[in-house]
């Protein structure tokens, strides 16, 4: 009862705490595109609450594909096309130039922005972004999204969110576990749920509004669903044994999960509306970590039925099971790349190697390691399939790190307090 009250209080007061995650880029690309993001003009009242241009710069820099020009080097700060002198920018070897201004209107704050190709001396993108003076970060990320999409042809994922779990030591064998939500750059961290008992495997529903996770608050692992808009929490399972690894189906109506109520851990699918359960696998070995294919017709999962953990795929309609991984002594926690071209998983080559995040190309059957860190786990792919987050150890601390799906760009998001793990990247939210 006390706990329930605490939870309610947590939810009520889950205001934005200061950003706990900071970002360190560890590896970028060889020839990033240079772009100048001129500080946006401000016509609102008072001073802007955020440095919008700075946020855009950081967004673009994090992709490794762009190199923002230092603000001190800029020879001017144009806000209109008429104020742009291309020769100035060409001198700085700038390839692209972003200018804009934020203007208050009757419907809210409007950011007007223009992107120029400096060599061609042409405007290649013009946009307006409506927002609120208190949520300048949303405006900044939306502008980053449109620039990224214009330049790469890939939808930007800067406006999406991430979930992760932090554990802060309070005393001897005492921890405070927090389920946190933040922007992808680690800003605006927000506590969704706090507990003295472990929280595991958060997972986003495709609607971006509901999440599911495992909490040990009832003394045994149980799967909970939480509505992010209303804050309402629902306990979905309370079976004997293991209740774990919830994963939402692409249509958001079903939840794949692991239950050991009938003996060994097996994969089940629950209809979220009716709570009806369907057993998907039946094997005396351990079947766990389900993840849906984009078409919603198959599930991939980890099983040690072949003596060692490997990835299998099961077709829901007929129960046909097929092994997907044959290289390496350990393959687990697979997630499907959004375009279905491959899967990302935790991979170990031999017993003597470290655990890395690797990509399996489904057509070719080849496995490519993406990370060089050790003890890597829990990969979660961005909805545009460009980058993935994973949990790893850095200086004896659990941290989150990211790597692009081609392995070219890497950065870390260390937390200033305690250990963080179990990242989950949201779907597109707009």
């Amino acid at each position, binding site marked *: 009862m006390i706990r329930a009250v605490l939870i309610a209080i947590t939810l009520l007061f889950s205001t934005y705490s200061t950003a706990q995650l900071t970002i360190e880029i560890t590896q970028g690309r060889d020839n990033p595109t240079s772009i100048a993001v001129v500080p946006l003009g401000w016509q609102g009242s008072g001073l802007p609450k955020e440095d919008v241009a700075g946020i855009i710069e950081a967004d673009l820099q994090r992709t490794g594909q762009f190199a923002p020009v230092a603000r001190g080097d800029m020879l001017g700060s144009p806000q209109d096309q008429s104020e742009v002198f291309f020769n100035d920018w060409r001198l700085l070897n700038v390839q692209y130039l972003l200018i804009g201004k934020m203007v208050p209107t009757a419907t809210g704050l409007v950011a007007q922005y223009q992107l120029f190709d400096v060599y061609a001396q042409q405007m290649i993108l013009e946009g307006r972004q409506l927002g609120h003076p208190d949520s300048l970060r949303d405006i900044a990320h939306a502008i980053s999204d449109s620039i990224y999409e214009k330049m790469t042809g890939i939808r930007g994922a800067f406006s999406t969110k991430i979930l992760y779990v932090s554990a802060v030591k309070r005393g001897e064998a005492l921890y405070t576990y927090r389920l946190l939500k933040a922007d992808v750059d680690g800003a605006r961290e927000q506590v969704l749920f706090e507990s003295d008992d472990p929280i595991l495997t958060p997972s986003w529903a495709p609607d971006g509004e509901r999440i599911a996770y495992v909490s040990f608050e009832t003394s045994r692992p149980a799967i909970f669903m939480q509505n992010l808009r209303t804050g309402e929490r629902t306990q979905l399972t309370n079976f004997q044994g*293991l209740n774990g690894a919830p994963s939402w189906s692409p249509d958001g109506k079903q939840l794949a999960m692991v239950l050991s109520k009938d003996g060994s851990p097996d994969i089940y699918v629950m209809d979220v509306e009716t709570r009806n359960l369907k057993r998907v696998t039946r094997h005396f*070995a351990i079947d766990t970590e389900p993840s849906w294919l984009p078409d919603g017709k198959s599930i991939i999962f980890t099983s040690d039925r*072949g*003596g060692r953990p*490997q990835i299998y795929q099961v077709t829901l309609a007929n129960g046909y099971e097929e092994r997907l991984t*044959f290289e390496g002594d350990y393959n*687990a926690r697979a997630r499907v790349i959004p375009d279905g071209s491959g899967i990302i998983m935790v991979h170990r080559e031999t017993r003597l190697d470290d655990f890395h995040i690797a990509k399996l190309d489904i057509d070719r059957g080849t496995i490519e390691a993406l990370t060089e860190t050790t003890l890597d786990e829990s990969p979660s792919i961005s909805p545009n399939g460009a980058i993935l987050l994973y949990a790893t150890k850095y200086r004896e601390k659990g941290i989150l790190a990211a790597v692009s*799906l081609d392995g070219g760009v890497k950065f870390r998001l260390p937390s200033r307090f305690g250990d963080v793990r179990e990242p989950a990247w949201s779907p597109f939210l707009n």
Partner: protein
Amino acid sequence: MSIRCLFKTALFFSAVFVYSTASYAQAPIVDASVPSNVEESAPAPQAVGQQNTNPQGELFYQLQLLQQEVMQLRGQVEEQAYELQKVKEQNRERYIDLDRRIGELSVTPVATTSPPAAAANQQVANLPVAAVPSTADEREAYNAAYSLVVSKQFADALNAFKQFLIDYPDGRYAPNSHYWMGELYQVVVPRDLDASREAFTQLLNQYPNHAKVPDAMYKLGKVYFEKGDRATAKQWLERLITEHGQGANRSAADKARQFINANF
């Protein structure tokens, strides 16, 4: 729950189980009518002495061992089935390659030497295979693809070279196309080192005397290096130095020397 944890736990439990068959002896169910096969079936020494009174625990232990065994065997069967499938595919590819090369062999002499009259019929039969569309078209297609490389439209260039090789698989510029595809697979997004390796290897296998061979060897060595296969990388670079280390065409070999000095 993290699977690593889970599997560790499972291992732990099975280990505990092995050592705890004894504790099952406390279960009061004793069926005297079932003869116990302790001597033949229970090699675990720590359980000896208790098993006479514990047929159920023994049975459960046997079941666990059997399950472990089945899992290992299943793993082996799955892996061998996979290997077999791979071997089949490789065999097929080799056969097609061989067939193509034999086909080439039976055509080439016809083109170079004036055939004896007896072979004339065969020459006619082979003509359609050897018929190559006019070389002007081929040059134009190649130049178009190459100009895409120059203008840095790498993905388009790659497709153009692929199409070129479909249209002119044995054309004059086919080796150059393989070379450029090898280069392009490394710069397109996402880059594909395996395909790049494949392209360079094809060039080296099919046109061992072509002018692009030294460069292709150098690039192939680097591809292996990037893929983490340092041994094969070094093999290729050293072979390049031995075979093309002298003479006018030695710039690739020089680069290989520098690369070896810097990285090995």
